[in-house]
C-alpha cells in the first residue's frame, strides 16, 4: 500500500514538474478550461440570483387596482370600501396619488424629473391580496374579470403575471444553462484530449523506451491521467477566481433588479459544496478526457 501510494505521489510530482517545464502551454490549456467552466457557472449564478428574487413572491400574489383619474377622492374611497368587503379579498390597502408618487420616487430616485411635470400623473390605487383559496392563477384571473366590471376602476394588474413570466424566463435560462454546461463539457473533452495527445506525441520516445524496459500499460498511462486531472483541477480553481471577479462585475446590475422588486437580494453566493463541485467537475472531466485520449493514442506507440 505504501509503495503504491509512493508510486502515485512520484508520478504526481513528475506531472507537476512537466507543468513547470512548459508553463505557457500548460497555462493556456488551464485558462481555456477555466473559461469553459466559468461561462455556464455565471449563468448558473445569475439564475440562482433570479430565483432568489422570484422566491419572495410565490404564494402571495398581489392585485394592483388603479382607479380612474377622473374620479374624485370620495368616490375612490367608496370603491376601496367595496373591495375591502369582497369575500375573496383578504387585505386591501388604499394608496392616494400622493402616496403612489412618494413610493415611486423612493424606488426610482427620479423626483426631479417628476417635479417638472407639475401635476401628479399617477392614479389612486388599491393594493389587494386575495385569500388563500383565490391565490391560484385561474381563480385570480376570474377575480380580475369580475373586478374589472366595477365602475370607476381603470385597470387591474396581477403581479402573478409577472411572477409567471419571470418564472418561465428563469426556466428558459435554467435549460440554457444546462445545455451550455453539456456543450462546453464536450468542448472541454476535446481540449484536454488534444492537449494530452500532444503530450503523448512529444513523449513518444520516452513511452517506447519505458515499454522496452518492462513498463506496463498502466505505468505508461498514469502520468497522462494525472496531467488530465491536474489540468482540470487547476482549470477549476482558475474558474473560481474568474467567477469571483465576474460576480463583482454583475453584482450592481442584480442589486438594481432586486430593489426594483423590493428585495434586498444580492448576487447568489455559491456555497462551498458548489465551489467544490466546479473543481471536482473539472478534475473528473480532465481525468476521463485523458483516459479516452490515452486509450486512443497510446495504442499506436509500440517499441521498435
Amino acid at each position, binding site marked *: 500500500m505504501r509503495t503504491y501510494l509512493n508510486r502515485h505521489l512520484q508520478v504526481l510530482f513528475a506531472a507537476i514538474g512537466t507543468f513547470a517545464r512548459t508553463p505557457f502551454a500548460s497555462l493556456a490549456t488551464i485558462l481555456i478550461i477555466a473559461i469553459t467552466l466559468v461561462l455556464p457557472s455565471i449563468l448558473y449564478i445569475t439564475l440562482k440570483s433570479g430565483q432568489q428574487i422570484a422566491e419572495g413572491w410565490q404564494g402571495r400574489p398581489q392585485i394592483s387596482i388603479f382607479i380612474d383619474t377622473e374620479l374624485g377622492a370620495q368616490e375612490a374611497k367608496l370603491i376601496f370600501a367595496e373591495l375591502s368587503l369582497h369575500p375573496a379579498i383578504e387585505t386591501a390597502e388604499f394608496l392616494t396619488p400622493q402616496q403612489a408618487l412618494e413610493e415611486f420616487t423612493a424606488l426610482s430616485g427620479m423626483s426631479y424629473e417628476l417635479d417638472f411635470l407639475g401635476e401628479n400623473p399617477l392614479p389612486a390605487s388599491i393594493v389587494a391580496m386575495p385569500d388563500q383559496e383565490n391565490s391560484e392563477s385561474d381563480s385570480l384571473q376570474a377575480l380580475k374579470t369580475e373586478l374589472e366590471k366595477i365602475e370607476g376602476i381603470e385597470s387591474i394588474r396581477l403581479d402573478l403575471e409577472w411572477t409567471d413570466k419571470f418564472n418561465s424566463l428563469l426556466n428558459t435560462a435554467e435549460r440554457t444553462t444546462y445545455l451550455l454546461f453539456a456543450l462546453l463539457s464536450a468542448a472541454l473533452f476535446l481540449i484536454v484530449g488534444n492537449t494530452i495527445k500532444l503530450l503523448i506525441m512529444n513523449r513518444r520516445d*520516452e513511452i517506447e523506451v519505458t515499454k522496452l524496459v518492462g513498463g506496463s500499460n498502466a505505468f505508461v498511462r498514469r502520468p497522462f491521467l494525472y496531467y488530465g486531472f491536474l489540468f482540470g483541477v487547476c482549470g477549476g480553481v482558475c474558474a473560481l477566481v474568474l467567477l469571483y471577479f465576474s460576480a463583482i462585475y454583475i453584482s450592481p446590475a442584480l442589486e438594481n433588479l432586486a430593489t426594483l422588486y423590493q428585495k434586498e437580494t444580492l448576487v447568489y453566493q455559491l456555497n462551498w459544496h458548489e465551489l467544490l463541485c466546479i473543481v471536482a467537475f473539472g478534475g473528473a472531466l480532465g481525468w476521463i478526457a485523458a483516459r479516452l485520449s490515452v486509450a486512443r493514442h497510446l495504442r499506436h506507440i509500440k517499441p521498435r
Partner: protein
Amino acid sequence: MITLDHVSKIYQNGHQALNDVSFNMAAGEMAFLLGHSGAGKSTLFKLITAIEKPTSGRITVDGKSFDKLRDSQIPALRQEIGVVFQDHKLLYDRTVFDNVALPLIVIGMSHDEIKKRVRAALGKVGLSGKEKVLPVALSGGEQQRVGIARAVINRPNILLADEPTGNLDESLSDEILDIFADFNRVGVTVLIATHDLRQVERLNKRTIELSQGEITGGETIEPTKLS
C-alpha cells in the same frame, strides 16, 4: 532458457529476416551471435523480447511459451530480460541517473534502493559521478555504457546485448565483456551479438552463426535433441 523452434520472421514489407531458425540456450549459458550486417541478429533479439512476433515457429523464454503470451504479460517478461540495444535507446532529455533507473522505476522500487543500485551499476561500467549528466554530453562509448548499466540494473536472468562494444576501443571492450562474463558466472544467461571475433576468441564461448536469416554454423543444438 531461450528456445527457438523453426522460427521465421517476414517483415510487413515482405522481407524475410529470419528463416527456419532453431536453437536452444540453457540457463546460465553464454554465447555469441555472429553474422554480417543484415543477417538478422537484431531481429532475433526483437523476437526474444516480444517486440516483434514471429511469422511462424515457436519461441519459449524462461519456460514461457510465446504462443500463450498475452499482451499484459509482456512487461513482466521484459523486466526479466536486460537488453543492450544496438542504437542505445537512451532518453536524451533525461539525466544518466534517470536513464539507468528507468527499469527500477517501472517496477516501483523505493527511491533509496534505486539510488544505491544506480550508483553501483554506474561504478561497474566506469561512469561514476556522471549521474547528473545528459547523455548528449557523453561520447558514443559512454552512452553505450549507460545502456549497459540500464540493462543490468534490475539483475535480469537473461542478458541480451546487440553489438555492445561497437563504439568502444579494445581495452574498454575487454572490460565490458568481462562484466558480461561476470554476470554469466553468477548464473545469468548471456547472448551477445557481435562482429568482434577477437572477443569471441578471447572468451572462448559458444557461437551461433547467422547468414541471411539462416543459421549456418556454430555449435547449435537442435531443440528436439535436447529434450
